[in-house]
């Protein structure tokens, strides 16, 4: 309690002690600062009108080392002082004369606010863990497939959007999974983790339809309780022929970029997994000719554009003529500026090399 008027000081001590605080006091600014340094209080009441220092200056000095609540007391009631008081790091402001009740309720309000702080940190903690989960889902090492150049790029958003991609060698070439779980945060990250595990578990099944049906059934059962869904693109590449068999459940942002500079967007074959009971997803096929690329992009990139057509054109421009799949995937990510993107952005490029040695 930093207050030069002994009567008011006595009143404050009385009111606060009654509220259960242990109170120490000082009659001027400099001794007050010393006392705060020593006692490390939770709350400081600070008179604006002190004999040695201006109260605002005391407040500023206290803020250099203390995060105690600071309630400023003053008889100067004009608005400017009020704002100045708050800008100097004060948490509240009470004008004299004040009623003990008012003081008590203001102080209670401050401490209630502090109690709600752990909630914020729990949210931050959740996001931090969600980010870890999400990062752990991404392929750890590069996968090499003869005759192909592969790259994946991923940039998480602050909110953790639930994007991930996964790929691994198969006897014939490559399996690729690209997914985006609904929502954000830990919920989305956990769904993504489930999807990755389930898709991997079906990788040994040779027929894609059977594998996808089994996987989507398992995922949908899991999602039912959370009334959530996941968009899922899964492709299997036969490296020798360039044949790609794929299933698209509600993603719709995979592109076949042809060597000649044309592009075809692959429409989704059905709703996202978990969105609608009884959905089925037809298998489709495309062939990657030398120089062609399969490019899969997340909706975080789409958000930057007004239409799917504009998005498709931009991805084509970012991809076509790049020296490597890595350069292409990086260029796609940079279509969504990092400082404004609200969602994760992800891009995977599977390019069949042009000058392939013929065996």
């Amino acid at each position, binding site marked *: 309690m930093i207050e030069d008027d002994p009567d008011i000081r006595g009143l404050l001590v009385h009111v606060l002690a009654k509220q259960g605080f242990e109170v120490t006091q000082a009659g001027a600014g400099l001794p007050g600062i010393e006392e705060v340094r020593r006692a490390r209080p939770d709350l400081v009441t600070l008179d604006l009108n002190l004999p040695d220092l201006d109260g605002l200056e005391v407040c500023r000095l206290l803020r250099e080392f203390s995060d105690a609540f600071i309630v400023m007391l003053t008889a100067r009631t004009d608005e400017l002082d009020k704002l100045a008081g708050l800008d100097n790091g004060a948490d509240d402001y009470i004008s004299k004369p004040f009623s003990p009740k008012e003081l008590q309720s203001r102080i209670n309000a401050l401490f209630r606010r502090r109690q709600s702080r752990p909630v914020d940190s729990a949210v931050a903690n959740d996001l931090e863990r969600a980010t870890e989960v999400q990062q752990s889902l991404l392929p750890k090492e590069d996968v090499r497939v003869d005759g192909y150049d592969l790259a994946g790029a991923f940039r998480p958003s602050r909110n953790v959007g639930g994007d991930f991609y996964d790929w691994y060698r198969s006897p014939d070439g490559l399996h690729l999974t690209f997914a985006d779980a609904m*929502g954000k945060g830990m919920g989305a990250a956990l769904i993504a983790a489930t999807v990755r595990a389930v898709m991997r578990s079906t990788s040994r099944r040779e027929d894609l339809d059977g594998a996808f049906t089994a996987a989507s059934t398992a995922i949908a059962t899991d999602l039912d309780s959370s009334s959530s869904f996941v968009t899922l693109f899964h492709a299997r590449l036969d490296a020798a022929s360039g044949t790609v068999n794929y299933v698209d459940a*509600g*993603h719709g942002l995979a592109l076949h970029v042809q060597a000649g500079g044309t592009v075809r967007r692959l429409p989704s074959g059905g709703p*996202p997994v978990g*969105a*609608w009971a009884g959905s089925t997803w037809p298998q489709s096929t495309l062939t990657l000719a030398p120089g062609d690329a399969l490019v899969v992009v997340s909706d975080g990139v789409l958000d930057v554009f007004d239409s*799917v057509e504009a998005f498709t054109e931009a991805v084509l421009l970012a991809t076509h003529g790049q020296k490597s799949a890595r350069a292409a995937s990086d260029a796609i990510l940079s279509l969504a500026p990092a400082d404004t993107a609200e*969602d994760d952005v992800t891009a995977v490029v599977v390019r069949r090399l042009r000058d392939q040695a013929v065996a």
Partner: protein
Amino acid sequence: MEFSYEIKDSYAEVKANGRLNMVSAPKLREFVTDVIAGGSSRIVVNLENTAFMDSSGLGALIGCLKAARQAGGDLRIAAVQPQVKMVLELTSMDRVLTSYASAEEAFSHD
């Protein structure tokens, strides 16, 4: 995002104004659930003033559709704006969530 509703002859029209995202999606769910609980299970969600919808928003519409069907009714959407239409098409959810040019048309043929 703000919601309002109006009981018409054969359906309830729910108007959703604003961005349908992670913040507003649960509110839409709650709002439509209340409308259904109030006895109206034939619902048109008028999206004339919804310029943006994300995946959470789509999830809310799906949840509302399921709830309406479970109550023996249906949920249809009207006056869908370009970005929302794009999301529905990309995700193939336009096959499930039927959209109409106006709220009046949504239940006019059955």
